[in-house]
C-alpha cells in the first residue's frame, strides 16, 4: 500500500512492511519501521480506506517523528557530553575480577586512615555505605567491617560532572575500589569511625555491584530499639534479620558480637592448654542417646539408625579412662527439645571439660571456675572496643565477677531465699524463678554475675552418668562406655557450657539467636 506522507522522505515498499525514512534537523537519517498487515483489497476499498488510512498514518508518522526527534536530541547531548568527559577513564564498572591480571597495588585498610597518612594518594577497597549528591559534589561513606570514612567526589580538574553523577548512582553495599588523596579535616566527622580524615576521590571503580533494593537497611539494623520507637524510625525485627543473615551480619554490632565470641573460644583453648589440658574431638554420630531418649535427633545410618550426640559426655569420660587425665572439646551439640524460648537452640556449640582429680571434686570446680574467670578477664582487657560497640545498640551493665569465684552451698542459697520471703523445703529443687531470684540476691550482696552453687541435695540431682535400670536403655549399645570403667577408672569430674549462652550473658543480651551466626531452633532451618 502506498502511503504518501507530507515530508521529505523516501519510500519503499516491502512485503508486509512499510518503511518510512525520516530525516531530522541535523541531517541524520533515522529509520522507523512499522509493520502493517497487507491483505488483498479492492481498489475501491483501497481508495476509501486510503483516506482514513492516510490520516491515521499521518498521525502515527507525526508521533514517530517527534519520538525520533527526542531520541536524536538525547543522542546529540550524549555525544556532546561524551566529548566533554575528560575523566571517562577514571570511573566505571570494572569487569569481574577473574584473576586475569595481577595488579601490584597496595590496598590500605580504612582502620589505618589516620592523620599520619595526610596528603598521601592511596587505594582503598570498601563498601559504599551511603552516597549523597549535592550539586557539584557527591559525599560517600565507605565502610569496612567496623570502620567507616567519609569520601568526596567534586567536580574539578580530576573529576567531571559525569563522574560525580556516576558516584551518586552507585547502589548501596556495592564494593568499590577507590584511589584518593587523604586530607585532614578541621572539624571532626562525628558520624564516622575515622573522624579526623576525609578522602578526596580521584578514581572510583565498582568491583561488585549490589542490587538496588536491599531487604533491610543497615542503619535500621543498628538502631537501638527505644530510639526507633521514639523518633518513629524503623528498627529491624529478629525474624527479618535471621532471614537475611548475610546482610545483618555486616552491621558493626554483629561484627563486634562475633569477634567477641571468637575471643571466648580462643581464651577457652589457651587457658586450658596452659593448664595442661588436651583438646579432643568426639564423634557426633553415636549409637545410643547419652542424656536420655527424649530429646535426640535420629539419623538414618545405612541399614540402621543412629543418633546425633546430645553431648560429648560419654567420650570425655572414656578419654579419662584412657589416661588422658585432662581433656576438653569444642564442638556442636544437638538437642531435639521443642522449646521456643529465648535461650534454647536445637544446635549449639558446647565447650566441655573433663579431668581426673586426686581427692576431692573441688579440685575440678576450682579448675573450671578459674578457666571461666580467665575468659572473663581476657574479654574485659582485650575486647573493650567490641563490648562498647554492642552496648551502643544494646545498653547493659558491665559484667562483674570475683576472683577466686564465689562458691556458696545449696543450704546458704535456701537460707537467702527464705530470708527474702520464699517458702521452700531443704531438699526442694530450685525452680526457674527462684533460681533467678537467688541470682539477684547474690548480685546484691556480693556484686557478682557469676557464682557456683555447690552441694545440691542428691534427691534433687540424680546422678546423670549412671544409667537408670528402669529407663530401658539398651546396655549393649553403650557397652563400650561401661567397659571403660571395668579396667580401672580414676575419680573424675567435669562440666560443659554453651558458647552462645556465655556470650549472650556476658554482653547482657536477651536472645541466644543474637549470638548464634546461623541459629537452629524448632522453627528455623535456614539460612
Amino acid at each position, binding site marked *: 500500500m502506498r502511503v504518501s506522507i507530507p515530508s521529505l522522505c523516501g519510500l519503499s515498499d516491502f512485503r508486509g512492511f512499510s518503511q518510512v525514512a525520516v530525516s531530522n534537523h541535523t541531517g541524520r537519517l533515522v529509520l522507523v519501521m512499522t509493520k502493517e498487515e497487507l491483505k488483498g483489497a479492492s481498489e475501491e476499498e483501497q481508495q476509501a480506506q486510503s483516506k482514513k488510512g492516510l490520516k491515521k498514518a499521518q498521525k502515527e508518522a507525526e508521533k514517530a517523528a517527534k519520538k525520533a526527534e527526542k531520541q536524536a536530541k538525547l543522542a546529540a547531548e550524549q555525544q556532546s557530553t561524551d566529548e566533554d568527559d575528560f575523566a571517562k577513564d577514571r570511573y566505571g564498572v570494572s569487569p569481574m575480577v577473574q584473576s586475569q591480571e595481577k595488579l601490584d597495588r597496595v590496598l590500605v585498610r580504612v582502620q589505618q586512615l589516620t592523620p599520619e597518612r595526610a596528603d598521601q594518594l592511596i587505594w582503598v577497597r570498601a563498601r559504599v555505605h551511603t552516597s549523597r549528591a549535592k550539586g557539584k559534589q557527591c559525599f560517600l561513606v565507605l565502610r569496612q567491617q567496623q570502620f567507616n570514612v567519609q569520601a568526596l567526589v567534586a567536580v574539578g580538574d580530576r573529576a567531571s560532572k559525569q563522574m560525580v553523577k556516576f558516584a551518586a548512582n552507585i547502589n548501596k553495599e556495592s564494593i568499590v575500589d577507590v584511589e584518593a588523596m587523604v586530607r585532614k579535616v578541621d572539624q571532626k566527622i562525628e558520624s564516622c569511625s575515622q573522624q579526623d580524615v576525609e578522602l578526596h576521590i580521584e578514581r572510583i571503580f565498582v568491583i561488585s555491584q549490589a542490587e538496588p533494593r536491599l531487604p533491610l537497611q543497615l542503619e535500621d539494623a543498628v538502631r537501638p530499639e527505644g530510639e526507633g520507637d521514639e523518633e518513629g524510625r524503623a528498627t529491624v525485627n529478629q525474624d527479618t534479620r535471621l532471614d537475611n543473615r548475610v546482610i545483618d551480619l555486616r552491621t558493626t554490632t554483629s561484627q563486634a558480637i562475633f569477634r567477641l565470641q571468637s575471643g571466648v573460644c580462643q581464651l577457652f583453648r589457651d587457658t586450658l592448654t596452659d593448664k595442661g589440658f588436651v583438646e579432643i574431638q568426639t564423634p557426633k554420630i553415636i549409637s545410643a542417646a547419652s542424656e536420655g531418649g527424649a530429646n535426640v535427633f535420629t539419623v538414618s545410618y545405612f541399614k540402621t539408625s543412629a543418633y546425633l550426640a546430645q553431648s560429648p559426655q560419654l567420650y570425655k569420660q572414656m578419654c579419662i579412662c584412657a589416661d588422658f587425665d585432662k581433656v576438653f572439646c569444642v564442638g556442636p551439640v544437638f538437642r531435639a527439645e521443642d522449646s521456643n524460648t529465648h535461650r534454647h537452640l536445637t544446635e549449639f556449640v558446647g565447650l566441655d571439660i573433663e579431668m581426673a582429680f586426686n581427692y*576431692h571434686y*573441688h579440685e575440678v570446680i576450682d579448675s573450671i571456675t578459674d578457666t571461666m574467670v580467665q575468659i*572473663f*578477664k581476657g574479654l*574485659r*582487657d582485650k575486647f573493650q572496643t567490641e563490648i562498647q560497640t554492642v552496648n551502643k545498640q544494646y545498653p547493659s551493665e*558491665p*559484667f*562483674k*565477677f*570475683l*576472683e*577466686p569465684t*564465689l562458691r*556458696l*552451698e545449696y*543450704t*546458704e542459697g*535456701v*537460707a*537467702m531465699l*527464705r*530470708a*527474702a*520471703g520464699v517458702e521452700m523445703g*531443704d531438699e526442694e529443687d530450685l525452680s526457674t524463678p527462684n533460681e533467678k531470684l537467688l541470682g539477684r*540476691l547474690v548480685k*546484691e*550482696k*556480693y*556484686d*557478682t554475675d557469676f557464682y557456683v552453687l555447690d552441694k545440691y541435695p542428691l534427691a534433687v540431682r540424680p546422678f546423670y552418668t549412671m544409667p537408670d535400670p528402669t529407663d530401658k536403655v539398651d546396655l549393649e549399645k553403650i557397652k563400650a562406655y561401661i567397659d571403660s570403667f571395668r579396667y580401672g577408672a580414676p575419680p573424675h569430674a567435669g562440666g560443659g557450657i554453651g558458647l552462645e549462652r556465655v556470650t549472650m550473658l556476658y554482653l547482657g543480651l536477651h536472645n541466644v539467636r543474637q549470638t548464634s551466626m546461623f541459629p537452629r531452633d524448632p522453627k528455623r532451618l535456614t539460612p
Partner: protein
Amino acid sequence: MSMYQVKPITGSDINVDLPTCMYKLPNLHAQPGSGSCIDNVLQLSTGPYVSSDQNGEVDPALKALEQRQDDILRRLYELKAAVDGLAKTVTTPDADLDATSLSSAAMMSAPKEVAHLDSLLGKDLGALRDIVVNANPSSPPLSLLVLHGLLCQRYRVLSTVHVHSSVSSVPPKLLNCLGPRHADSYTRQRFQLGFTLIWKDVPRLQMKFSVPNMCPIEGQGNVARFLSRLVGLEPHDPAAATMSDSWVDTAFFQLAEGSGKEQAAVLRALNAALGRGPWLAGQSSHWPTLCAPAASCRRAPVPPRPPPMSSAGSRGART
C-alpha cells in the same frame, strides 16, 4: 362474820411516803472532772458547777479528793524546782563529780553479758552467716584486719579474700592478709561465721550482712564498731562507750581525713592520752586504741609494719 381472820401485825397509822419520781439518776454535773489535767480541775473548781448533794452540803469524800489534788500539784511544783536546780548544776564544771558517781552506779547495776551470735545477728537459718566487706586496695582497712584476728580467736570463722572485676590487680600481700586458707574450707557448714573480704573499686569501705534486713554499713569506723560488738569488746557503761566512740570518730575523721592542723591537734591529744595510760578509752575498751594507727596509716606514703597491737589482741581477748 369473816371466815378467816388475821390479827394485824402493824398499826394502821404509819405514814407511807409515796414516791413522785419513777426513776432517779444522780446529778452528774455536780461532780468535778478528772484530776490529771490541772487546768481542768482549776476551771471546774471555780466554775458554776459546785458540787452538792441533796442536802446542799459539800460531800466530804469530794473534799478529800480535792485535798489530794492540791497535794499532788504542790509536789509537782517542788519537783520541777528541784530539776531546774539540778540542770543548772550539771552545766557547770562541777558536774564531772556527778557523772562519775552516776557511771559507777550504772556499772554496778548492769550485769556483764557475753555477746551471743544469735542475739546479735538474728536467728540462725541453718546456713553460714557471711559478712561481706568491700574495701579499696589503695587504702586497706588495717583496723579491720586486727578485729578479724580477734573474731577468729572467739569463733570459727571462714575467711576468704576475693578480687572484684572492677580492680585489675592486687599485690599478693593483700590477697593473703586474712591468713592461710583453712583446712576445712571445703565444708562451709562447719563454721559459725563467714568473713568475705572483696578488694573492689569503692569510694568508702562498705559492709553487707543480711541484705533484706540491713542496709550496707559504710566507713571504717562504723564497720569496726560492728565487728567489735561481735567480739564483745563494747564497754557496757555509757561513759566509757561514749569515750571510745569519740576516739574512733577522731581517728577516722580528723586524723585520716583532716587537714594538717587537725592532724597535729589529734596527735597531741593522743600523746597526752597515751601518756596517762596504755589505752585510749580506759581499761574497759581497748579496741579504739588501734583505730588511731590504722587511720594514720592511710596518710602515710609507705604502709608501715603492722602496728604493735599484737598485745592488744591477747589483752582484748582476756576482757
